[in-house]
């Protein structure tokens, strides 16, 4: 049996790895339009700032493919699928290649916003960042054009990670975000404010509530105009405003698509023996575009192509980590139940805010089930929360994981619950007293003893 995988990103590669673990003999061929074996996209910003070289990015080198008996065809763009013949065509080659099972892992591409002059100046002062070639283009443009000021459009994870490395290139750096806070898809307004302070302390300017309307051009890029009249000067503009699934190849083969390639619970597309995995899929009207989803889906699809239909995809709980050295931030699941009326009806929000050490931990619980969390400034609780998301949790273990305790007065039995009050017990003034008049040191930690 021959399995062909289109795309050599994380979803395609981990799928190949999983298939090989399940079956030693099946033939696996990966086609990639890029010229590099599987590399880490999350490190692309560091390529621009010269913190790493291309070789550092490569996760699986040639010997990995050889040891796992996986064939990888680089610089080979698949241009056409004939689902009825079960063949594909590669650009520049006349002969078709046949498959028994085809897996589309075509990934996603950056959103190019409808900003005046953005398309005209693309790759000439305006850039997006998705692959090694993009990073090299940005790097070269900065080096050869005496670039002093940079604007990053998009204050999401990718935008901030890029901004940090652009700042490391010693450029005057500004992040422009459409929403009134940074990381709108991962943070609530309080935590967004704390993050903004940290980002600004790194010397990065932040413009919020900013809809970029136009890119000023005078032969070269000069800056941007924001809808409310603000202007920011820039010699280079980097757009990191989300991604969209790459669906062209599937669409042209008459495979059902919407925002992504539509799949069922086994990650099968609408055509027989064609599957899809990763950023390019749409399942139950949802697309993902996050690494944990790629990993989870690659397990499902590898079972499915081998006819082991035992695993069913149920969607992936959103989980994101900001990858800036010195800032620990993970956001999982539901982080901001907006309807205030919900609070009380089985919903519980626990917060541990320590502004002095820039710590913000928020846990969302419904009917004793962990529904989501923001963990900022302290990643010790990340494994606990990841493991227990959507599961019933014990109060004791949760409190231990996020260091929120109940303190009990030895005198009158009054309980000071840090989870429900603004101040942590340790931050109460020394002369603070219990309702019964007992001093602070009369209290004992109820959970730890």
């Amino acid at each position, binding site marked *: 049996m021959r399995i062909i995988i289109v795309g050599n990103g*994380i979803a395609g590669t*981990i799928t190949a790895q999983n298939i090989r673990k399940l079956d030693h003999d099946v033939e696996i061929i990966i086609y990639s339009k890029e010229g590099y074996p599987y590399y*880490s996209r*999350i*490190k692309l910003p560091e390529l621009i700032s010269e913190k790493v070289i291309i070789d550092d990015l490569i*996760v699986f080198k040639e010997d990995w493919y050889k040891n796992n008996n996986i064939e990888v065809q680089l610089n080979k763009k698949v241009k056409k699928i004939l689902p009825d013949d079960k063949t594909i065509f590669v650009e520049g080659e006349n002969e078709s290649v046949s498959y028994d099972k085809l897996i589309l892992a075509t990934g996603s591409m950056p959103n190019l916003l409808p900003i005046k002059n953005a398309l005209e100046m693309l790759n000439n002062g305006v850039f997006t960042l998705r692959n090694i070639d993009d990073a090299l283009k940005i790097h070269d443009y900065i080096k050869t054009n005496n670039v002093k000021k940079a604007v990053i459009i998009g204050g999401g994870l990718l935008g901030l990670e890029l901004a940090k490395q652009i700042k490391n290139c010693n450029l005057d750096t500004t992040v422009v975000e459409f929403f009134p806070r940074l990381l709108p898809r991962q943070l609530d307004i309080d935590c967004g404010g704390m993050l903004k302070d940290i980002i600004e302390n790194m010397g990065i300017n932040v413009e919020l509530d900013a809809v970029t309307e136009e890119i000023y051009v005078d032969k070269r890029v000069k800056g941007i105009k924001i809808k409310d009249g603000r202007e920011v000067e820039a010699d280079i503009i980097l757009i990191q405003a989300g991604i969209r699934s790459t669906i062209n190849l599937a669409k042209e083969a008459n495979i059902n698509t919407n925002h992504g390639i539509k799949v069922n619970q086994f990650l099968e597309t609408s055509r027989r023996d064609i599957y899809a995995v990763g950023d390019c899929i749409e399942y139950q009207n949802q697309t993902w575009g996050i*690494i*944990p989803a*790629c*990993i*989870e889906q690659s397990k499902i699809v590898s079972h499915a192509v081998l006819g082991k239909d035992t695993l069913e995809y149920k969607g992936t709980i959103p*989980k994101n*980590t900001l*990858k800036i*050295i010195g800032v620990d931030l*993970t956001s999982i699941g539901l982080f901001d139940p907006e309807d205030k009326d919900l609070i009380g009806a089985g919903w519980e929000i626990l917060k541990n805010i320590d502004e002095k050490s820039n710590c913000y931990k928020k846990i969302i619980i419904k009917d004793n089930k962990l529904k989501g969390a923001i963990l900022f400034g302290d*990643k*010790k609780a*990340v*494994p606990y929360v*990841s*493991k227990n998301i959507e599961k019933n949790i014990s109060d004791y273990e949760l409190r231990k994981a996020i260091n929120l305790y109940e303190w009990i007065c030895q005198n009158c039995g009054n309980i000071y619950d840090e989870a429900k009050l603004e101040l942590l017990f340790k931050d109460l003034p020394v002369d603070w007293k219990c309702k019964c008049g007992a001093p602070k040191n009369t209290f004992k930690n109820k959970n730890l003893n």
Partner: protein
Amino acid sequence: MDYNDFNIIIMFLLNIILNNLKEFEFSLLYRIYNLKKEEKYMAKWECTACGYIYDEAEEDTPFEDLPDDWLCPVCGVDNNGYPITT
């Protein structure tokens, strides 16, 4: 420096004095001392898939001693991480 380090250094110095800086003993002890130091080195491991950093200084278990079925707590991948320096 903790109590163990202190002990090793005292032993080291005492031995140097007792052995009157005999060249052979010196090099052997010196090597043992360095080995002890290496054992205590706390590495940072970065997940090859998602970039999650496993910092041995903050965890109870050295990365190499984690069970084989250990998964990255953020992305769930079961690849080995690789050491990084920051």
